[in-house]
């Protein structure tokens, strides 16, 4: 069973003209637990839309979406929010930490309104990412790499099935970027599926599988060749899948 899966998913937006904009065109995409997939492609190719649809921030126009084997294609707003909290972690290019909250509070933010105190769990997570001495610092007192580590810790607070990262190294220097990618390695070893949308070749180096999105069409979306695109060229070997074991 995949951690997250899209089957024949299409996303169309009402464009300026008569023709709607097709951001995702009949996409098959699946990530196994503990797999790190990098999605690459030029700007405007639909990478953000793919991440939004995977992350239950946006609904597909057509097709099916599964999370941990559960059909989550069409949920109510409240159900989607709950599902995001339970099963999906987000890491953004701009970190998106709340400036008024300390590191621990930022990590515990998804559970801030639930009964019970998650700050111990949050502090444990921060310690694991080497920020044990920065627990009560506010984001303004942290470096870029530290902020992104806080963001990763936040994404893991509810032990998600999937971690979705939008240009996670985009605002970091190479060295810090590498350290963040190393953290992703550790996250995936704990069975979390990691999907990173990126322009950064460094991310591709760390990924188990790199898929390319061009004008809403995805190539190599499914690991073992079950997808339509793979079925069409079933005889050909898939370079991405073959390289999966390298890193």
């Amino acid at each position, binding site marked *: *069973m995949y951690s997250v899966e899209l089957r024949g998913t299409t996303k169309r937006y009402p464009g300026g003209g008569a023709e709607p904009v097709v951001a995702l065109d009949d996409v098959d995409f699946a990530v196994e*637990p503990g797999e790190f997939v990098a999605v690459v492609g030029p700007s405007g190719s639909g990478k953000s839309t793919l991440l*939004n649809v995977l*992350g239950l*921030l*946006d609904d597909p126009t057509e097709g099916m979406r*599964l999370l*941990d*084997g*559960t*059909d*989550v294609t069409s*949920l*109510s*707003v*409240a*159900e989607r*929010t*709950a*599902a*995001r*909290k*339970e*099963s*999906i*972690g*987000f890491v*953004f290019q*701009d970190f*998106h930490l*709340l*400036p*008024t*909250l300390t590191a621990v509070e930022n990590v515990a*933010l*998804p559970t*801030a*309104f639930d*009964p019970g105190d998650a700050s111990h769990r949050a502090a444990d*997570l921060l310690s*694991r990412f080497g920020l044990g001495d920065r627990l009560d610092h506010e984001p303004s007192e942290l470096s870029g790499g530290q902020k992104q580590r806080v963001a990763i810790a*936040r*994404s*893991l607070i*509810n*032990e998600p*099935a999937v971690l979705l990262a939008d240009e996670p190294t985009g605002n970091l220097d190479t060295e810090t970027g590498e350290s963040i990618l190393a953290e992703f390695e550790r996250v995936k070893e*704990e*069975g*979390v599926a990691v999907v990173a949308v990126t322009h950064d070749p460094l991310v591709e180096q760390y990924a188990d599988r790199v898929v390319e999105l061009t004008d809403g069409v995805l190539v190599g979306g499914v690991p073992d060749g079950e997808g339509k695109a793979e079925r069409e060229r079933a005889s050909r070997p898939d370079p991405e899948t073959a390289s999966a074991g390298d890193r």
Partner: protein
Amino acid sequence: MSRTDSPDSPSTTSFPDSRESSGFGDRLRGWRPAVAMAARNLRRNRVRTALAVLGVCIGVLAVAALGIFGNVLALGADDAIGDIGTQVVVSPNADAGIDSLSDADVAAVRRAVGEPAVVPLYSDNAVVAGPSEQEFATVYGVEEPGLAFEAAEGRLPERHRRGAIVGASVAEELGVGPGDTVEIAGSQVRVVAVLVESQTFSPVAPDDAVFLPESAFSAEGYGQALVVAESGEGARDAADAIREEVNAREERVDLFELAAIVDEINEFFGLLSTFLLGLGAISLVVAGVSILNVMLMSTVERRQEIGVMRAVGVARRDVLRVLLSEAGLIGAAGAAAGTVLTVLLVAGLVLATPEVDAALALDPTNGYYLLLALGFGVGVGLVSGAYPAWKAANERPVEALRN
């Protein structure tokens, strides 16, 4: 950290609707982190928050202070005219050619009003002289002065047989008290009592009068009769009864009924209070608009933050709670400050103007205006915060996150 659910768990996992909550305790618990977060957000832009709080503070001050001023005016007026509302003055109807009230008229009035005391008065005018001063005063003949008047010095006799009861102004003017002697129309009369200064306007004007026994008068009939009821209501009933029974066939008596005037005066002060309250309410509405503005600005500025909260799984309801708490806190802080300022202002007013009776300012009904203003302040905050909060909470996170 490890994923605890087994990888081959059946696909029946459903995501609980986070909006479901059970019981009041849960609902209350949800507000605590929201209020804590709201307080920090407000501290972020202290000047803006302080200005919004100031706006509410002024609004609440206006409502509470103007409400209390109106109330104190009404209470003061009520205090001043309250007594006369319980009296009806019955006088002969000169238009019908009747010059005085006969014993039969007085008896008819007594029958008509029932319980309230009827005090018939002879009246005349005379020069009243003390040891050094003299004054022109109304002289009444009264048998039972205790029913209608109160003594400040001396004692009012149950039946007035001898001596003079002197009104407060006359006593002061002539410099006499109980035991002294005054000369009225040439005869020496001992003063037995001095009346309490009357707080009210009354056609009888007891302050400027001297009361003698009825035997001092040789007149045919009474000049007027006082009907003294327990309450304004009783006075009104008595007046109605006299109109119906004594004046049934012939308009024998004129009634000077103060209760009706008191009603109108009270009505006027009620109107004045409402008007003042309305004036205050306008400033509170202005304060509400300023909260609306502050909240709209801050939600627009924090659009991405709110989007992030929604993206990482914070429910719309909780975002709404945080933002409503912010507006509510502004309202509550402003209302509390405004209430304290009002108390200080009223206290200052009482201290600075001796005309205002402290008892009036301490009247419990003024507390009602304080509570009203306090409630309005918080309410204005919540109402003004509702729209920006609702708007921000319902924005799709995918839109809010877009740079």
